[in-house]
Protein backbone atom coordinates (compact mmCIF):
# COMPACT_ATOMS: atom_id res chain seq x y z
CA UNK A 1 0.00 0.00 0.00
CA UNK A 2 1.14 3.53 -0.72
CA UNK A 3 -0.18 6.49 1.23
CA UNK A 4 0.98 9.93 0.27
CA UNK A 5 0.78 13.13 2.31
CA UNK A 6 0.17 16.77 1.48
CA UNK A 7 3.93 17.17 1.26
CA UNK A 8 3.82 15.08 -1.90
CA UNK A 9 1.19 17.42 -3.29
CA UNK A 10 3.30 20.48 -2.54
CA UNK A 11 6.28 18.93 -4.30
CA UNK A 12 4.48 18.58 -7.63
CA UNK A 13 6.08 20.72 -10.34
CA UNK A 14 2.78 21.84 -11.85
CA UNK A 15 -0.45 23.34 -10.54
CA UNK A 16 -2.87 21.01 -8.76
CA UNK A 17 -6.19 21.42 -10.56
CA UNK A 18 -9.62 20.60 -9.16
CA UNK A 19 -11.53 20.17 -12.41
CA UNK A 20 -15.01 19.86 -10.85
CA UNK A 21 -16.12 22.40 -8.28
CA UNK A 22 -19.02 24.82 -7.81
CA UNK A 23 -19.84 28.34 -6.73
CA UNK A 24 -23.13 29.29 -5.15
CA UNK A 25 -25.58 32.13 -5.28
CA UNK A 26 -26.38 34.25 -2.25
CA UNK A 27 -29.89 33.95 -0.84
CA UNK A 28 -32.84 32.03 -2.21
CA UNK A 29 -33.00 33.63 -5.64
CA UNK A 30 -31.63 31.29 -8.31
CA UNK A 31 -30.47 34.34 -10.20
CA UNK A 32 -28.89 35.95 -7.14
CA UNK A 33 -25.35 37.27 -6.93
CA UNK A 34 -22.23 35.28 -6.15
CA UNK A 35 -21.91 34.05 -2.57
CA UNK A 36 -18.56 35.71 -2.02
CA UNK A 37 -17.98 34.18 1.39
CA UNK A 38 -18.39 30.70 -0.06
CA UNK A 39 -16.18 31.61 -3.00
CA UNK A 40 -13.43 32.77 -0.67
CA UNK A 41 -13.97 29.61 1.36
CA UNK A 42 -13.00 27.58 -1.69
CA UNK A 43 -9.69 29.38 -1.84
CA UNK A 44 -9.18 28.85 1.89
CA UNK A 45 -9.89 25.13 1.55
CA UNK A 46 -7.58 24.93 -1.46
CA UNK A 47 -4.80 26.67 0.45
CA UNK A 48 -5.08 24.20 3.29
CA UNK A 49 -4.99 21.22 0.94
CA UNK A 50 -2.51 22.36 -1.69
CA UNK A 51 -4.98 22.85 -4.53
CA UNK A 52 -3.91 25.64 -6.88
CA UNK A 53 -6.84 26.00 -9.26
CA UNK A 54 -10.56 25.24 -9.04
CA UNK A 55 -12.68 24.91 -12.15
CA UNK A 56 -16.15 25.97 -11.09
CA UNK A 57 -19.68 25.85 -12.39
CA UNK A 58 -22.86 27.23 -10.89
CA UNK A 59 -24.61 24.83 -8.53
CA UNK A 60 -28.20 23.71 -8.05
CA UNK A 61 -29.33 24.47 -11.56
CA UNK A 62 -31.60 21.47 -11.52
CA UNK A 63 -34.78 20.92 -13.47
CA UNK A 64 -35.88 22.71 -16.60
CA UNK A 65 -33.67 25.75 -16.18
CA UNK A 66 -33.98 28.32 -18.93
CA UNK A 67 -31.66 30.91 -20.33
CA UNK A 68 -32.09 33.53 -17.62
CA UNK A 69 -31.22 31.01 -14.90
CA UNK A 70 -28.07 29.59 -16.42
CA UNK A 71 -27.01 32.97 -17.77
CA UNK A 72 -27.15 34.34 -14.22
CA UNK A 73 -25.28 31.30 -12.98
CA UNK A 74 -22.54 31.86 -15.51
CA UNK A 75 -22.37 35.50 -14.43
CA UNK A 76 -21.60 34.23 -10.92
CA UNK A 77 -18.85 32.06 -12.33
CA UNK A 78 -17.40 35.03 -14.15
CA UNK A 79 -17.51 37.03 -10.91
CA UNK A 80 -15.61 34.24 -9.18
CA UNK A 81 -13.02 34.16 -11.99
CA UNK A 82 -12.57 37.92 -11.65
CA UNK A 83 -12.40 37.72 -7.85
CA UNK A 84 -9.63 35.09 -7.90
CA UNK A 85 -8.17 35.22 -11.40
CA UNK A 86 -5.17 33.02 -10.66
CA UNK A 87 -7.14 30.44 -8.71
CA UNK A 88 -10.52 29.99 -10.39
CA UNK A 89 -11.40 28.94 -13.91
CA UNK A 90 -14.98 28.75 -15.14
CA UNK A 91 -17.21 26.15 -16.73
CA UNK A 92 -20.09 27.45 -18.83
CA UNK A 93 -23.30 25.79 -17.63
CA UNK A 94 -26.21 25.37 -20.03
CA UNK A 95 -29.39 23.39 -20.40
CA UNK A 96 -28.79 21.57 -23.69
CA UNK A 97 -32.44 21.90 -24.63
CA UNK A 98 -32.54 25.66 -24.41
CA UNK A 99 -32.47 27.42 -27.79
CA UNK A 100 -29.95 29.96 -26.50
CA UNK A 101 -27.51 27.36 -25.20
CA UNK A 102 -25.06 27.68 -28.10
CA UNK A 103 -25.16 31.47 -27.91
CA UNK A 104 -24.31 31.30 -24.23
CA UNK A 105 -21.44 28.88 -24.92
CA UNK A 106 -20.07 31.19 -27.59
CA UNK A 107 -20.20 34.17 -25.30
CA UNK A 108 -18.64 32.44 -22.32
CA UNK A 109 -16.12 30.09 -23.88
CA UNK A 110 -14.95 32.08 -26.88
CA UNK A 111 -15.31 35.61 -25.56
CA UNK A 112 -14.88 35.28 -21.78
CA UNK A 113 -12.35 32.43 -21.69
CA UNK A 114 -14.43 29.88 -19.84
CA UNK A 115 -12.67 26.53 -20.17
CA UNK A 116 -15.52 24.39 -21.44
CA UNK A 117 -19.12 23.33 -20.94
CA UNK A 118 -20.78 21.88 -17.85
CA UNK A 119 -23.96 19.89 -18.31
CA UNK A 120 -26.29 18.51 -15.66
CA UNK A 121 -29.12 16.02 -15.91
CA UNK A 122 -31.61 17.87 -18.08
CA UNK A 123 -30.60 15.55 -20.95
CA UNK A 124 -28.39 12.51 -21.25
CA UNK A 125 -25.04 12.93 -22.94
CA UNK A 126 -26.09 10.70 -25.86
CA UNK A 127 -29.37 12.48 -26.68
CA UNK A 128 -29.61 14.27 -30.05
CA UNK A 129 -30.27 17.63 -28.40
CA UNK A 130 -26.72 17.57 -27.00
CA UNK A 131 -25.05 16.92 -30.35
CA UNK A 132 -24.70 20.57 -31.46
CA UNK A 133 -22.95 21.33 -28.19
CA UNK A 134 -20.58 18.40 -28.60
CA UNK A 135 -19.86 19.45 -32.16
CA UNK A 136 -19.09 23.02 -31.07
CA UNK A 137 -16.79 21.75 -28.33
CA UNK A 138 -15.00 19.48 -30.79
CA UNK A 139 -14.50 22.42 -33.12
CA UNK A 140 -13.00 24.47 -30.30
CA UNK A 141 -11.30 21.50 -28.61
CA UNK A 142 -12.74 22.31 -25.20
CA UNK A 143 -14.04 19.74 -22.73
CA UNK A 144 -17.55 18.90 -21.61
CA UNK A 145 -17.91 17.97 -17.94
CA UNK A 146 -21.16 16.12 -17.33
CA UNK A 147 -22.92 15.25 -14.09
CA UNK A 148 -23.17 11.48 -14.17
CA UNK A 149 -23.59 8.29 -12.22
CA UNK A 150 -25.51 5.10 -11.78
CA UNK A 151 -27.64 5.67 -8.67
CA UNK A 152 -29.28 2.44 -7.63
CA UNK A 153 -31.76 3.52 -4.99
CA UNK A 154 -35.23 4.29 -6.29
CA UNK A 155 -35.48 7.72 -4.71
CA UNK A 156 -32.33 9.07 -6.33
CA UNK A 157 -33.22 7.55 -9.68
CA UNK A 158 -36.67 9.12 -9.52
CA UNK A 159 -35.14 12.52 -8.89
CA UNK A 160 -32.78 12.18 -11.85
CA UNK A 161 -34.54 10.27 -14.61
CA UNK A 162 -32.17 11.57 -17.28
CA UNK A 163 -28.90 11.32 -15.46
CA UNK A 164 -26.08 10.30 -17.80
CA UNK A 165 -24.70 6.86 -17.09
CA UNK A 166 -21.45 5.38 -18.31
CA UNK A 167 -23.18 3.48 -21.10
CA UNK A 168 -24.52 6.80 -22.37
CA UNK A 169 -20.95 8.10 -22.46
CA UNK A 170 -19.96 5.04 -24.46
CA UNK A 171 -22.67 5.90 -26.99
CA UNK A 172 -21.64 9.55 -27.23
CA UNK A 173 -17.93 8.76 -27.44
CA UNK A 174 -18.54 6.20 -30.16
CA UNK A 175 -20.40 8.79 -32.21
CA UNK A 176 -17.95 11.60 -31.38
CA UNK A 177 -14.52 10.08 -30.74
CA UNK A 178 -12.85 13.50 -31.03
CA UNK A 179 -14.91 14.93 -28.16
CA UNK A 180 -13.30 15.68 -24.81
CA UNK A 181 -15.99 14.18 -22.60
CA UNK A 182 -15.55 14.01 -18.83
CA UNK A 183 -17.82 11.80 -16.75
CA UNK A 184 -18.29 13.62 -13.47
CA UNK A 185 -17.68 12.27 -9.97
CA UNK A 186 -17.13 8.53 -9.92
CA UNK A 187 -17.71 8.93 -6.17
CA UNK A 188 -20.87 10.96 -6.58
CA UNK A 189 -23.16 8.25 -5.29
CA UNK A 190 -23.96 5.37 -7.56
CA UNK A 191 -22.71 1.97 -8.59
CA UNK A 192 -19.19 2.98 -9.57
CA UNK A 193 -18.18 -0.59 -10.34
CA UNK A 194 -20.92 -0.71 -12.99
CA UNK A 195 -19.68 2.59 -14.41
CA UNK A 196 -16.07 1.43 -14.64
CA UNK A 197 -17.12 -1.72 -16.49
CA UNK A 198 -18.75 0.40 -19.18
CA UNK A 199 -16.06 3.05 -19.41
CA UNK A 200 -13.57 0.40 -20.49
CA UNK A 201 -15.45 0.51 -23.81
CA UNK A 202 -15.06 4.28 -24.22
CA UNK A 203 -11.34 4.92 -24.62
CA UNK A 204 -11.73 8.67 -25.16
CA UNK A 205 -13.82 9.44 -22.09
CA UNK A 206 -12.21 10.97 -19.02
CA UNK A 207 -13.40 10.43 -15.47
CA UNK A 208 -13.08 12.66 -12.42
CA UNK A 209 -12.60 11.13 -8.96
CA UNK A 210 -14.71 13.57 -6.95
CA UNK A 211 -17.75 12.93 -4.81
CA UNK A 212 -18.57 12.06 -1.24
CA UNK A 213 -18.18 8.30 -1.69
CA UNK A 214 -14.76 7.47 -0.27
CA UNK A 215 -14.71 3.75 -0.95
CA UNK A 216 -11.33 2.15 -0.44
CA UNK A 217 -9.98 0.75 -3.74
CA UNK A 218 -12.25 2.91 -5.92
CA UNK A 219 -9.53 5.05 -7.52
CA UNK A 220 -7.20 2.08 -8.02
CA UNK A 221 -10.02 0.18 -9.68
CA UNK A 222 -10.61 3.21 -11.92
CA UNK A 223 -6.95 3.21 -12.90
CA UNK A 224 -7.15 -0.49 -13.71
CA UNK A 225 -10.23 0.02 -15.86
CA UNK A 226 -9.37 3.26 -17.68
CA UNK A 227 -5.65 3.81 -17.30
CA UNK A 228 -4.12 6.76 -15.46
CA UNK A 229 -4.16 9.05 -18.51
CA UNK A 230 -7.95 9.36 -18.32
CA UNK A 231 -8.35 10.16 -14.63
CA UNK A 232 -8.75 13.68 -13.29
CA UNK A 233 -8.51 15.05 -9.76
CA UNK A 234 -11.63 16.87 -8.58
CA UNK A 235 -13.52 17.53 -5.36
CA UNK A 236 -17.08 18.55 -6.19
CA UNK A 237 -17.09 20.07 -2.68
CA UNK A 238 -15.73 16.94 -1.00
CA UNK A 239 -12.36 18.50 -0.29
CA UNK A 240 -10.57 16.31 2.23
CA UNK A 241 -12.28 13.23 0.92
CA UNK A 242 -11.22 13.72 -2.67
CA UNK A 243 -7.69 14.72 -1.76
CA UNK A 244 -7.51 11.70 0.54
CA UNK A 245 -8.70 9.39 -2.22
CA UNK A 246 -5.91 10.73 -4.44
CA UNK A 247 -3.27 10.41 -1.72
CA UNK A 248 -4.24 6.80 -1.08
CA UNK A 249 -4.21 5.75 -4.73
CA UNK A 250 -1.52 3.21 -5.49
CA UNK A 251 0.20 5.33 -8.15
CA UNK A 252 3.81 5.96 -9.01
CA UNK A 253 5.00 9.58 -9.02
CA UNK A 254 4.29 10.05 -12.71
CA UNK A 255 0.79 8.71 -12.32
CA UNK A 256 0.13 10.89 -9.29
CA UNK A 257 1.31 13.93 -11.24
CA UNK A 258 -1.03 13.09 -14.10
CA UNK A 259 -3.99 12.64 -11.79
CA UNK A 260 -3.41 15.84 -9.86
CA UNK A 261 -3.34 18.21 -12.80
CA UNK A 262 -1.12 17.17 -15.70
CA UNK A 263 -3.90 15.28 -17.44
CA UNK A 264 -6.35 18.15 -17.13
CA UNK A 265 -3.76 20.72 -18.17
CA UNK A 266 -3.19 18.66 -21.31
CA UNK A 267 -6.92 18.94 -22.01
CA UNK A 268 -6.85 22.70 -21.49
CA UNK A 269 -3.82 22.99 -23.75
CA UNK A 270 -5.81 21.61 -26.67
CA UNK A 271 -8.04 24.66 -26.74
CA UNK A 272 -8.44 25.98 -30.28
CA UNK A 273 -10.57 29.08 -29.90
Amino acid at each position, binding site marked *: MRYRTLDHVKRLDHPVIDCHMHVRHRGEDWRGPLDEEYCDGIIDANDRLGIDVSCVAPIRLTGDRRYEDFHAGNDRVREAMQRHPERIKGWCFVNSGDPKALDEITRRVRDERFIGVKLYNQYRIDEPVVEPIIERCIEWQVPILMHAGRP*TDPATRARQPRISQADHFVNAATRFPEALLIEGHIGGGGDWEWSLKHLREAPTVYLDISGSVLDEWMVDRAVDALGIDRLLFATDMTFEGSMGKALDADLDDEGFSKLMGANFQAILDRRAV
Partner: protein
Amino acid sequence: MTAVRPIDCNAFLGNWAFRRLRRNDAQELLAMMDHFGITQACVASADAILYRDCHAGNEEIFEETRKHADRFWLYATLNPAYAGWERDLASCAERGFKAVRLYPYYHEYALDGADASRIIDAATEAGLPVSIPGRVVDVRQRHWMDTKKNLDVDQLIRVAGDHPNATFLLTEGLLNAPPGDDFWSKVRGVNVYVEMSRMTSVLANSIGTTIDELGADRMLFGTGFPFKTPSPAFLKIQILEADAAVKQQILSENAKRLFGA
Protein backbone atom coordinates in the same frame (compact mmCIF):
# COMPACT_ATOMS: atom_id res chain seq x y z
CA MET B 1 1.62 12.86 10.40
CA THR B 2 0.98 13.84 14.00
CA ALA B 3 2.69 13.56 17.34
CA VAL B 4 -0.52 12.23 18.86
CA ARG B 5 -1.02 8.50 18.36
CA PRO B 6 -4.60 8.18 17.11
CA ILE B 7 -7.22 5.64 18.05
CA ASP B 8 -9.40 4.65 15.11
CA CYS B 9 -12.95 4.20 16.41
CA ASN B 10 -14.43 3.10 13.11
CA ALA B 11 -12.81 0.08 11.48
CA PHE B 12 -13.91 -3.34 10.29
CA LEU B 13 -12.56 -6.79 9.64
CA GLY B 14 -13.99 -9.35 7.29
CA ASN B 15 -16.02 -9.43 4.11
CA TRP B 16 -18.98 -7.50 2.83
CA ALA B 17 -21.48 -9.39 0.72
CA PHE B 18 -22.21 -6.55 -1.68
CA ARG B 19 -18.74 -5.31 -2.60
CA ARG B 20 -15.33 -6.92 -2.52
CA LEU B 21 -13.17 -5.33 0.15
CA ARG B 22 -9.38 -5.52 0.26
CA ARG B 23 -6.96 -5.03 3.14
CA ASN B 24 -9.69 -6.44 5.34
CA ASP B 25 -7.82 -8.88 7.56
CA ALA B 26 -5.98 -8.18 10.79
CA GLN B 27 -2.52 -8.10 9.20
CA GLU B 28 -3.57 -5.60 6.54
CA LEU B 29 -5.37 -3.46 9.09
CA LEU B 30 -2.28 -3.51 11.30
CA ALA B 31 -0.16 -2.41 8.34
CA MET B 32 -2.45 0.56 7.75
CA MET B 33 -2.44 1.37 11.48
CA ASP B 34 1.34 1.22 11.67
CA HIS B 35 1.68 3.48 8.65
CA PHE B 36 -0.46 6.17 10.22
CA GLY B 37 0.69 5.61 13.79
CA ILE B 38 -2.66 4.36 15.01
CA THR B 39 -2.27 2.70 18.38
CA GLN B 40 -5.62 0.93 18.56
CA ALA B 41 -8.44 0.32 16.13
CA CYS B 42 -11.96 -0.35 17.32
CA VAL B 43 -13.14 -3.03 14.93
CA ALA B 44 -16.46 -4.61 14.14
CA SER B 45 -17.09 -7.64 12.02
CA ALA B 46 -18.31 -6.67 8.55
CA ASP B 47 -19.64 -10.20 8.04
CA ALA B 48 -21.68 -10.04 11.23
CA ILE B 49 -23.96 -7.38 9.82
CA LEU B 50 -25.50 -9.86 7.39
CA TYR B 51 -25.07 -13.13 9.24
CA ARG B 52 -28.39 -14.42 10.58
CA ASP B 53 -26.53 -15.16 13.81
CA CYS B 54 -24.33 -12.12 13.93
CA HIS B 55 -22.51 -13.34 17.03
CA ALA B 56 -20.60 -15.70 14.73
CA GLY B 57 -18.87 -12.60 13.39
CA ASN B 58 -17.88 -11.62 16.91
CA GLU B 59 -16.30 -15.03 17.37
CA GLU B 60 -14.38 -14.59 14.12
CA ILE B 61 -12.86 -11.23 14.95
CA PHE B 62 -12.05 -12.34 18.48
CA GLU B 63 -10.04 -15.25 17.09
CA GLU B 64 -8.44 -13.17 14.36
CA THR B 65 -7.25 -10.41 16.67
CA ARG B 66 -6.29 -12.31 19.82
CA LYS B 67 -2.57 -12.30 18.91
CA HIS B 68 -2.73 -8.51 18.84
CA ALA B 69 -5.26 -7.89 21.56
CA ASP B 70 -3.42 -4.76 22.62
CA ARG B 71 -4.03 -3.18 19.19
CA PHE B 72 -7.68 -4.08 18.61
CA TRP B 73 -10.68 -3.04 20.62
CA LEU B 74 -13.69 -5.04 19.60
CA TYR B 75 -17.30 -4.13 18.95
CA ALA B 76 -19.81 -6.86 19.75
CA THR B 77 -22.30 -6.90 16.90
CA LEU B 78 -25.62 -8.04 18.30
CA ASN B 79 -29.19 -8.26 17.12
CA PRO B 80 -31.74 -7.82 19.90
CA ALA B 81 -34.46 -9.30 17.69
CA TYR B 82 -32.57 -12.59 17.38
CA ALA B 83 -32.32 -15.55 19.68
CA GLY B 84 -29.88 -15.66 22.54
CA TRP B 85 -28.34 -12.21 22.36
CA GLU B 86 -28.26 -11.96 26.15
CA ARG B 87 -25.85 -14.86 26.44
CA ASP B 88 -23.81 -13.55 23.50
CA LEU B 89 -23.54 -10.13 25.11
CA ALA B 90 -22.36 -11.68 28.35
CA SER B 91 -19.79 -13.73 26.45
CA CYS B 92 -18.46 -10.67 24.66
CA ALA B 93 -18.29 -8.63 27.86
CA GLU B 94 -16.40 -11.44 29.55
CA ARG B 95 -13.90 -11.55 26.70
CA GLY B 96 -13.19 -7.86 26.85
CA PHE B 97 -15.20 -6.46 23.94
CA LYS B 98 -15.33 -2.71 24.38
CA ALA B 99 -18.81 -1.84 23.12
CA VAL B 100 -22.02 -3.18 21.64
CA ARG B 101 -22.65 -2.49 17.95
CA LEU B 102 -26.24 -2.26 16.66
CA TYR B 103 -27.66 -2.07 13.12
CA PRO B 104 -31.42 -1.54 13.46
CA TYR B 105 -31.80 -0.74 9.75
CA TYR B 106 -30.30 -4.10 8.77
CA HIS B 107 -31.78 -6.25 11.52
CA GLU B 108 -35.24 -4.78 11.11
CA TYR B 109 -36.18 -3.66 14.58
CA ALA B 110 -37.08 -0.22 15.78
CA LEU B 111 -34.40 1.64 17.68
CA ASP B 112 -37.15 3.08 19.86
CA GLY B 113 -38.81 -0.32 20.35
CA ALA B 114 -38.77 -2.80 23.20
CA ASP B 115 -36.05 -5.08 21.79
CA ALA B 116 -33.63 -2.21 21.38
CA SER B 117 -34.48 -0.86 24.79
CA ARG B 118 -33.61 -4.18 26.41
CA ILE B 119 -30.21 -4.47 24.78
CA ILE B 120 -29.36 -0.84 25.50
CA ASP B 121 -30.16 -1.45 29.15
CA ALA B 122 -28.17 -4.68 29.16
CA ALA B 123 -25.14 -3.02 27.57
CA THR B 124 -25.34 -0.24 30.11
CA GLU B 125 -25.57 -2.78 32.91
CA ALA B 126 -22.42 -4.44 31.52
CA GLY B 127 -20.65 -1.07 31.37
CA LEU B 128 -20.48 -1.04 27.58
CA PRO B 129 -21.24 1.88 25.26
CA VAL B 130 -23.67 1.32 22.41
CA SER B 131 -22.29 2.11 18.95
CA ILE B 132 -24.56 2.65 15.96
CA PRO B 133 -23.29 3.61 12.49
CA GLY B 134 -25.24 6.26 10.65
CA ARG B 135 -24.94 3.95 7.69
CA VAL B 136 -22.74 1.18 6.36
CA VAL B 137 -22.89 2.16 2.70
CA ASP B 138 -24.24 5.13 0.80
CA VAL B 139 -27.71 3.98 -0.27
CA ARG B 140 -27.31 5.76 -3.59
CA GLN B 141 -25.00 2.93 -4.60
CA ARG B 142 -26.81 0.14 -2.82
CA HIS B 143 -26.76 -3.39 -4.09
CA TRP B 144 -30.25 -4.46 -5.10
CA MET B 145 -30.51 -6.71 -2.06
CA ASP B 146 -29.06 -4.18 0.39
CA THR B 147 -31.01 -1.97 2.79
CA LYS B 148 -32.55 1.29 1.64
CA LYS B 149 -32.43 2.78 5.11
CA ASN B 150 -30.00 4.84 7.15
CA LEU B 151 -30.07 5.56 10.84
CA ASP B 152 -32.55 8.24 11.90
CA VAL B 153 -30.23 10.44 13.95
CA ASP B 154 -33.11 12.36 15.50
CA GLN B 155 -34.52 9.07 16.69
CA LEU B 156 -31.15 8.15 18.19
CA ILE B 157 -31.14 11.41 20.12
CA ARG B 158 -34.63 10.69 21.45
CA VAL B 159 -33.68 7.14 22.42
CA ALA B 160 -30.57 8.43 24.15
CA GLY B 161 -32.86 10.71 26.13
CA ASP B 162 -34.92 7.71 27.16
CA HIS B 163 -31.77 5.95 28.41
CA PRO B 164 -29.91 8.62 30.36
CA ASN B 165 -27.47 6.16 31.89
CA ALA B 166 -26.44 4.69 28.57
CA THR B 167 -23.58 5.95 26.43
CA PHE B 168 -23.94 6.05 22.65
CA LEU B 169 -21.37 6.40 19.89
CA LEU B 170 -22.65 7.45 16.49
CA THR B 171 -20.11 6.32 13.90
CA GLU B 172 -20.46 7.47 10.30
CA GLY B 173 -22.37 10.37 11.78
CA LEU B 174 -23.21 13.47 9.80
CA LEU B 175 -24.19 16.29 12.15
CA ASN B 176 -24.55 19.24 9.84
CA ALA B 177 -27.13 21.45 11.53
CA PRO B 178 -26.18 25.13 11.40
CA PRO B 179 -24.73 26.85 14.46
CA GLY B 180 -27.38 27.73 17.00
CA ASP B 181 -29.94 25.27 15.65
CA ASP B 182 -32.28 23.61 18.16
CA PHE B 183 -30.78 20.27 17.17
CA TRP B 184 -27.64 21.04 19.14
CA SER B 185 -29.45 21.69 22.41
CA LYS B 186 -31.09 18.28 22.08
CA VAL B 187 -27.75 16.56 21.52
CA ARG B 188 -26.14 18.44 24.38
CA GLY B 189 -28.75 16.97 26.69
CA VAL B 190 -27.95 13.34 25.92
CA ASN B 191 -24.92 11.13 26.23
CA VAL B 192 -23.97 10.73 22.56
CA TYR B 193 -20.48 10.80 21.08
CA VAL B 194 -19.92 11.19 17.36
CA GLU B 195 -17.20 9.86 15.08
CA MET B 196 -16.08 12.38 12.48
CA SER B 197 -15.19 10.59 9.25
CA ARG B 198 -18.27 11.83 7.35
CA MET B 199 -17.85 15.44 8.35
CA THR B 200 -15.60 18.23 7.09
CA SER B 201 -13.20 20.88 8.36
CA VAL B 202 -13.67 23.32 5.47
CA LEU B 203 -16.52 25.44 4.08
CA ALA B 204 -19.53 24.02 5.96
CA ASN B 205 -17.01 23.02 8.67
CA SER B 206 -19.35 20.55 10.34
CA ILE B 207 -16.50 19.31 12.52
CA GLY B 208 -15.83 22.80 13.82
CA THR B 209 -19.51 23.48 14.39
CA THR B 210 -19.95 20.20 16.27
CA ILE B 211 -17.00 21.03 18.51
CA ASP B 212 -18.36 24.52 19.14
CA GLU B 213 -21.84 23.26 19.92
CA LEU B 214 -21.09 20.05 21.84
CA GLY B 215 -17.52 20.48 23.03
CA ALA B 216 -14.42 18.69 21.82
CA ASP B 217 -14.95 15.92 24.33
CA ARG B 218 -17.83 14.49 22.28
CA MET B 219 -15.98 13.79 19.04
CA LEU B 220 -13.94 10.71 18.17
CA PHE B 221 -11.59 9.97 15.32
CA GLY B 222 -12.37 7.20 12.83
CA THR B 223 -11.45 6.15 9.31
CA GLY B 224 -14.16 3.69 8.21
CA PHE B 225 -11.40 1.42 6.90
CA PRO B 226 -11.55 -0.84 4.89
CA PHE B 227 -14.93 0.30 3.59
CA LYS B 228 -13.43 3.77 3.22
CA THR B 229 -9.96 4.93 2.36
CA PRO B 230 -8.17 6.28 5.45
CA SER B 231 -6.42 9.51 4.47
CA PRO B 232 -9.54 11.72 4.32
CA ALA B 233 -10.08 11.34 8.06
CA PHE B 234 -6.49 12.29 8.80
CA LEU B 235 -6.67 15.30 6.50
CA LYS B 236 -9.80 16.52 8.27
CA ILE B 237 -7.95 16.62 11.58
CA GLN B 238 -4.73 17.91 10.06
CA ILE B 239 -6.36 20.99 8.52
CA LEU B 240 -8.95 21.53 11.27
CA GLU B 241 -8.60 25.01 12.74
CA ALA B 242 -8.26 23.95 16.35
CA ASP B 243 -5.46 23.88 18.87
CA ALA B 244 -3.36 20.81 19.57
CA ALA B 245 -5.21 19.96 22.77
CA VAL B 246 -8.52 19.74 20.93
CA LYS B 247 -7.02 17.54 18.25
CA GLN B 248 -5.54 15.29 20.92
CA GLN B 249 -8.96 14.90 22.50
CA ILE B 250 -10.48 13.88 19.19
CA LEU B 251 -7.66 11.64 18.07
CA SER B 252 -7.13 9.79 21.30
CA GLU B 253 -8.23 11.04 24.69
CA ASN B 254 -11.97 10.83 24.15
CA ALA B 255 -11.71 7.24 22.94
CA LYS B 256 -9.63 6.24 25.93
CA ARG B 257 -12.24 7.71 28.23
CA LEU B 258 -15.19 6.24 26.33
CA PHE B 259 -13.75 2.75 26.13
CA GLY B 260 -12.29 2.75 29.61
CA ALA B 261 -8.68 2.36 28.52
